[in-house]
C-alpha cells in the first residue's frame, strides 16, 4: 500500500505535468502571436495554480519560479512588458526549469538549483535586462526526449469504475459459491485453486474499491465559498475551519451526501449561529465558529458539522412536534432529548420562523436523513443550548461491500448491515417484561422494545401486531438490537448465523417498491438472502406496535 504522502505526490505530479504541457503549448502560441490574449490568460492561470500546488507541497523553489512567471505574464497582460527579445528566452528557461523540477519531484530527487534563473526572473520583473548565459542555450537530446513523456496517471469516468465494481461484486458472489462447492467435493486440487481464486478476487475487490476513493477534501474545499455567501446574506461573521480533508471515501458516497452536507452547513450558518447582536448579548465572540471535519472510525467515515451557535431548543422542538401531530402531548413529555431531536428529521419539519432564501422552507433536514438512509449511514446529533450543535454523519467507506450480521428466521437467512446493529443479546424470560403488550428489556439503563422479526415480516395487514404475553416467552430469546435515528429496537430471531461481508444487489422491478429490504445478497451456498432495511423495519414497528 502506498502512503498518502506518495499518493499526494503522484497527484501533484499528474497535475503539474499537465500544466507543464499546456504551458509549453500556450507559450509556443504566444511566440507566434505575442498578442494572443487567451493564451496569455491561460498561462497566467496555469502559473497561479502550479504556484499554489507547489507551495502546498513544500516545493518552495518551484513555487517561486511559477510565482515570478505569473507576475511576468501579468505584466505582459497589462501591457507593461512585451513578449519579445530576452524576455522570451528567460520565460522559456523558466518553463524548462519548471519541467525539470517537476520531473525531479517525480523521481524523488533534490530539485535543481534555480538561483541564477530566479535572479534573471527578478530582473525581468523589475524591468532590467536579464543576464543570459549562452552556454545554457543548447539543449541536450535527453532533455528534448523528456518533453515527450506521458503522464503516469489517467483520468477515468466514474461510470467505468461503477461497472468494474459491479462486475467484481458478481465475481465475489460466484467465488464464494465455488469455494463452498470445492469444500463439499473435497477435491484437494480444486480446493487449492478455489483458495487462490479467493485471494485474488479479494485483492481485486479491494483494488477496485481503492481506485474509487477520493479525499473528502474535494467536497470540503468547496465550502469556504458557500459559507461566505450564506454568512454575508445573513449578515453574520463566520470563521470556517476544515479538517480531515485527506480522509478517503468512495466518490459516489461523497456525491450522494453533497446536498445533505450543503444543507447542514447552510442550516448551521443561518439557524445555528446567532446574529452578531445576540452573540454579543450572550457574551460570545462576534465571529461564529463553524467546523467541518472528517475522520475515520473503524470502517466508517465520520463527517462532522459543528457550530458554536445557540443550540437546539429541545422544548421548542417538543412543542412543535405535538403541534404538527407527530406525537401526543403525553408521549412527547416523556421523550428524552435525543428522541425529541429525531423529529427534526421528519419530512417538512422546520423550526424556521420565516422563509428566507437560504433555508427555512420546511424542506430540510429530512433530506439529510434520506441521503444517509440510502447509503445505510447514520446521523448523530449533539447539542447544548447556548453552546452549539454538532451533526455527525456516519458513512460507509465504500458502497459495494458491507459488513452484515446474518440471522435466521424460519430456516431462512436474513442479513442486517452492521452499520445499524448495536449489540446481540441472549435473554432468558426473566429479563423480559411486557409493557402495554410490547416486550421490553433493559439495556444500559434504557428500555428497549423487543419484537419477533417473524411477526414484523410476515404479519400482513395494517392492524397492530398481537399483544405480547409474558407466558408465551419461553426459553432463551436471541435478540439483535438495532439502532436507527437514536431509536433502539430488539429483533427476536431464531438464531445468529455469522458475521460476513456481503455484496448487496438491488432488488429489481417490480419488487423494488418494497422498502423493507435494502436488496438481496447471494450466500456462498447459492442461497438468496434478503438484506433488511433497518430504517424501514423501525418505521414498520412504530406503525404497528400493539
Amino acid at each position, binding site marked *: 500500500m502506498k502512503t498518502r504522502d506518495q499518493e499526494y505526490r503522484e497527484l501533484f505530479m499528474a497535475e503539474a505535468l499537465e500544466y507543464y504541457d499546456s504551458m509549453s503549448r500556450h507559450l509556443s502560441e504566444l511566440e507566434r502571436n505575442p498578442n494572443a490574449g487567451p493564451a496569455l490568460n491561460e498561462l497566467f492561470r496555469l502559473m497561479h495554480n502550479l504556484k499554489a500546488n507547489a507551495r502546498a507541497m513544500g516545493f518552495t523553489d518551484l513555487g517561486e519560479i511559477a510565482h515570478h512567471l505569473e507576475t511576468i505574464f501579468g505584466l505582459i497582460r497589462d501591457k507593461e512588458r512585451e513578449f519579445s527579445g530576452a524576455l522570451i528566452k528567460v520565460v522559456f528557461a523558466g518553463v524548462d526549469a519548471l519541467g525539470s523540477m517537476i520531473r525531479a519531484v517525480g523521481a524523488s530527487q533534490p530539485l535543481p538549483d534555480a538561483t541564477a534563473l530566479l535572479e534573471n526572473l527578478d530582473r525581468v520583473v523589475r524591468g532590467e535586462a536579464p543576464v543570459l548565459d549562452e552556454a545554457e542555450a543548447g539543449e541536450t537530446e535527453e532533455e528534448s526526449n523528456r518533453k515527450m513523456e506521458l503522464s503516469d496517471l489517467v483520468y477515468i469516468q466514474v461510470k467505468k469504475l461503477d461497472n468494474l465494481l459491479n462486475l467484481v461484486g458478481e465475481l465475489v458472489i460466484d467465488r464464494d459459491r465455488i469455494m463452498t462447492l470445492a469444500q463439499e467435493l473435497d477435491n484437494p486440487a480444486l480446493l487449492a485453486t478455489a483458495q487462490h481464486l479467493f485471494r485474488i478476487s479479494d485483492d481485486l475487490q479491494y483494488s477496485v474499491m481503492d481506485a474509487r476513493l477520493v479525499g473528502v477534501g474535494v467536497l470540503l474545499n468547496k465550502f469556504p465559498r458557500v459559507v461566505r455567501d450564506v454568512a454575508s446574506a445573513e449578515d453574520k461573521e463566520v470563521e470556517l475551519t476544515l479538517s480531515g480533508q485527506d480522509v478517503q471515501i468512495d466518490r459516489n458516497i461523497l456525491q450522494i451526501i453533497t446536498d445533505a452536507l450543503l444543507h447542514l452547513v447552510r442550516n448551521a450558518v443561518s439557524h445555528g449561529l446567532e446574529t452578531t447582536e445576540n452573540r454579543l448579548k450572550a457574551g460570545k465572540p462576534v465571529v461564529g465558529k463553524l467546523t467541518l471535519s472528517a475522520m475515520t472510525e473503524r470502517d466508517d467515515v465520520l463527517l462532522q458539522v459543528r457550530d458554536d451557535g445557540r443550540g437546539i431548543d429541545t422544548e421548542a422542538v417538543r412543542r412543535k412536534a405535538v403541534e404538527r401531530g407527530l406525537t401526543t402531548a403525553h408521549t412527547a413529555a416523556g421523550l428524552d432529548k435525543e428522541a425529541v431531536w429525531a423529529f427534526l428529521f421528519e419530512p417538512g419539519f422546520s423550526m424556521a420562523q420565516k422563509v428566507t432564501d437560504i433555508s427555512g422552507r420546511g424542506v430540510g433536514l429530512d433530506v439529510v436523513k434520506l441521503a444517509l438512509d440510502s447509503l445505510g449511514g447514520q446521523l448523530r446529533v449533539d447539542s447544548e443550548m447556548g453552546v452549539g450543535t454538532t451533526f455527525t454523519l456516519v458513512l460507509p467507506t465504500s458502497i459495494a461491500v458491507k459488513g452484515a450480521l446474518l440471522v435466521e428466521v424460519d430456516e431462512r437467512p436474513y442479513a442486517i448491515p452492521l452499520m445499524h446493529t448495536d449489540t446481540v443479546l441472549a435473554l432468558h424470560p426473566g429479563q423480559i417484561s411486557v409493557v402495554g403488550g410490547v416486550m421490553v428489556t433493559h439495556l444500559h439503563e434504557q428500555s428497549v422494545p423487543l419484537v419477533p422479526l417473524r411477526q414484523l415480516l410476515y404479519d400482513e395487514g395494517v392492524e397492530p401486531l398481537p399483544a405480547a404475553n409474558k407466558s408465551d416467552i419461553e426459553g432463551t430469546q436471541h435478540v439483535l438490537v438495532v439502532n436507527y435515528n437514536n431509536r433502539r429496537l430488539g429483533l427476536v430471531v431464531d438464531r445468529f448465523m455469522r458475521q460476513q461481508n456481503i455484496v448487496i444487489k438491488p432488488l*429489481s*422491478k417490480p*419488487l423494488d417498491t418494497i422498502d423493507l429490504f435494502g436488496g438481496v445478497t447471494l450466500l456462498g451456498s447459492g442461497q438468496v438472502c434478503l438484506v433488511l432495511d433497518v430504517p424501514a423495519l423501525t418505521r414498520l414497528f412504530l406503525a404497528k406496535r400493539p
Partner: protein
Amino acid sequence: MAEIDTAFSSAKPERAKPAELVQLIVFRLGDEDYGIRIEQVKEVTVTPDVARMPKTPPFIKGIANLRGDIIAIIDLEERFNLRPAGRPLPERSYTVAVEAADYTLGLMVREVPRPLTMPLSQIEAAPEFVQDSSTRDKYLEGIAKLPEGGIIIVLDMRKLLTPSEVMRLPGKVASS
C-alpha cells in the same frame, strides 16, 4: 433446457408465403393450456430455490437466483384462481423466465413446458364475450385452435407483467 423445435430454419419467411409461423412455449395452468410467444421467453428451467418475500401478495412465491439475476417467481394459477382443488404445485415444478418491458419474471408451472410451432393464422382473437367477462381479458393475445382438437390460450406477457399489474394485490392490504 427447453429444446426448441426450429421449424423454420430460413430466418426470413417470405411475404408471399401465406403461412407465417409463430413459436409458442406452451404450459399448463389448472386444466388449460397457455402459450407465450417464444420471443418473450428467456429461459425454461427447473424452479430454483425460492426465498419467500415478506409483504408481497400470496401469488408472488418469492425471489430466486437465476444465473446471478434475482427474479421474482410468480404463480399464475394462484393469480388467476385456476388451481384445481386438492392439486397443489408439485415438489418439482418448472419456471418459465419471461421478459417484461425492463425486467425478468419467473412463472411457475406444474409440467415441463413444450415448444410448439403453428401458423399465425391459427391464433384467433379471443371472442368478445370472453374478453369482457374474463379477468384475463387484457392479457389475451388470442386463442389458438389445434388441428387435433383443444385450444391454447395465448398470453401477452408485456401486458400481463406491468409492475402495477404484478403488484396489484388481490386480498392483500397495503402494508404501510
